[in-house]
């Protein structure tokens, strides 16, 4: 009997040990939990996607204007703690969560101390690129206590990307990704997330080719000279604006702009506007779908 009790104790202890975990967030702070946190509040939409994809159920969320449709459906019935930019600290503290997950930007980082005083840990994350996505999914798998689900999600994203790459073979389309409106626009460099999606989908981004790299002062989205664009002669132009489009659609607004209208892609109608909630923000766990979709827009003949 005594031996049995000891065995039981050892078993329980072992199980406890197995679920204890430590992770480091993007601000460099380390967090240790002896068990899976039961009540987790997620303040921004990208991290919410990761959390749900890893099998988590958020106790509350922060509202954002850029939530994809499926997420809007999901959060019906989940309490809100205010907007991403200004979460309601009082409501958060009153809920007494085990963990709060925020975005890696100055405002959420500055909330860390206020919440710490109430004994609530706040971890901040942002997904930079595909490799980072895999690393973050691993952490979220630990947080939700569902590492297998997180791993499966990463595997399905990778298989979507491989499927796209097998279909288009060797990249052969020169693309340009424009962000904004024709009156005020930037172009996406390869180092931006949409730049990475475009390249994974088989596009050769003309903004950034034979340029000094797209790092340092110029990274993400920059105004690239239209003269350069004209000479680089892209095959396709993708426009990301804040219009409420849910699916990619042909766009004719550039035809009306004399500076753009002579571009071959514009003349041939190869201008497509992309939905903001997938391509204007980092699609994170929808990366695989986004790559497949963009690839099928670039190489429609191969996807028939």
């Amino acid at each position, binding site marked *: 009997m005594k031996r049995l009790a000891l065995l039981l104790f050892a078993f329980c202890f072992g199980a406890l040990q197995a679920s204890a975990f430590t992770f480091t967030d993007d601000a460099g702070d380390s967090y240790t939990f002896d068990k899976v946190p039961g009540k987790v509040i997620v303040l921004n939409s990208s991290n919410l996607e990761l959390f749900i994809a890893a099998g988590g159920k958020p106790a509350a969320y922060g509202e954002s204007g850029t939530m994809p449709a499926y997420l809007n459906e999901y959060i019906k019935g989940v309490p809100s703690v205010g907007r991403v930019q200004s979460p309601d600290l009082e409501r958060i503290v009153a809920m007494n969560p085990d963990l709060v997950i925020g975005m890696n930007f100055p405002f959420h980082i500055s909330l860390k101390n206020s919440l710490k005083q109430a004994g609530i840990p706040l971890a901040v994350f942002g997904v930079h690129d595909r490799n980072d996505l895999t690393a973050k999914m691993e952490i979220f798998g630990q947080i939700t206590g569902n590492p297998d689900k997180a791993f499966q999600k990463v595997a399905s994203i990778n298989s979507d990307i491989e499927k796209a790459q097998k279909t288009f073979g060797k990249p052969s389309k020169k693309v340009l990704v424009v962000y*904004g409106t024709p009156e005020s*626009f930037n172009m996406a460099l390869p180092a931006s997330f949409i730049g990475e999606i475009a390249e994974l989908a088989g596009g050769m981004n003309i903004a950034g080719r034979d340029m000094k790299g797209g790092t340092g002062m110029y990274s993400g989205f920059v105004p690239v000279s239209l003269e350069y664009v004209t000479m680089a002669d892209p095959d396709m132009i993708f426009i990301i*604006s*804040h219009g409420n489009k849910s699916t990619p659609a042909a766009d004719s607004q550039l035809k009306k702009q004399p500076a753009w209208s002579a571009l071959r892609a514009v003349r041939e109608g190869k201008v497509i506007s992309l939905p903001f909630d997938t391509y204007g923000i980092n699609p994170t766990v929808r990366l695989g779908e986004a790559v497949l979709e963009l690839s099928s827009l670039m190489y429609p003949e191969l996807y028939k």
Partner: protein
Amino acid sequence: MKHGIQTDPENGKRLVTAFFGTGLLFCGLLISVAKGSVGVSLSDFLAVFTAADANQGIYQVIMNIRLPRILTGGLVGMNMALSGAILQSVLKNPLADPGIIGISAGAGLAAMVVMILFPAMSAIIPPAAFLGAVGAALIIYFIAYNGGAHTLRLVLAGVALSAFLAAFMSALTVLFSDRVQGTVNWMAGTLHGKSWNHFYMVLPYSIVGFFGAVFGAKYLNILALGDDIARGLGLQVEKAKFLLTLLAALLAASAVSAVGLMGFVGLIIPHITRLIVGSDNRFLIPFSALFGAVTVIFADTAARTLFSPYELPVGILMAFIGAPFFLYLLTRGIK
């Protein structure tokens, strides 16, 4: 009056300045057409204007991107400088610029509302910004009007309304922080992507504005003597002030609606011009127009070529180069 001009000891200096200014304008035009992120050889360049089957890419770059952009920049610089010069005289305030009569705040808010809330309607950004600018200017004028538009009241009403409108802009920035990226270039003032449609949009205002300002210069000189003296000299002070302010508003609104908020030119160029040619508006006005155009053309050439093929908004570059130059002139003037 004519005799006065001929014996003015400043005349020699003005002639030299006019000569250099015009020279700079032509140099600027030539350099800016020849320089860009796409290198163009002289023979290719000439072929654009002569050969019928010229290199299509180069032709497109020069005729539909570079040239209209440079000309738009020239007009915008001229309009902003003229507007600033007129306002500084009418309001007798050295800190006056088109922003002080609500142009920046009115245009900025209108453009931001369209860019953030109705992004699909981006074609209406220029007319919306124009209406916002002129609307704000008129509101300020009528708030300040009380049996006459007292200059101090005008300035204060301008500051107050601008702050009021800026609050809405801040609110939009905070509530739609994810959409702000699409507006930053416009807010910094850029000629990126401007073409003939923008040029033709600004041109009529530039023509009317330039001749209106040159014609109005003598009234500005009279107003500079003070309202009472001006009235004594037979000037209809209120009517002159209103028409000149309206002219300044239209000039700045047309510029801002085409290229976005461009601060520096309207404030500093009239001062630089004043330090060089003196404060007689008959000279100050046309020279401000000239230097405004020269400044924007040179600044934009730099904005396009410094980090080519990336670009900087010209508004940023102008303040970067222009402000130290202005400080240099200022300290030299004080000695």
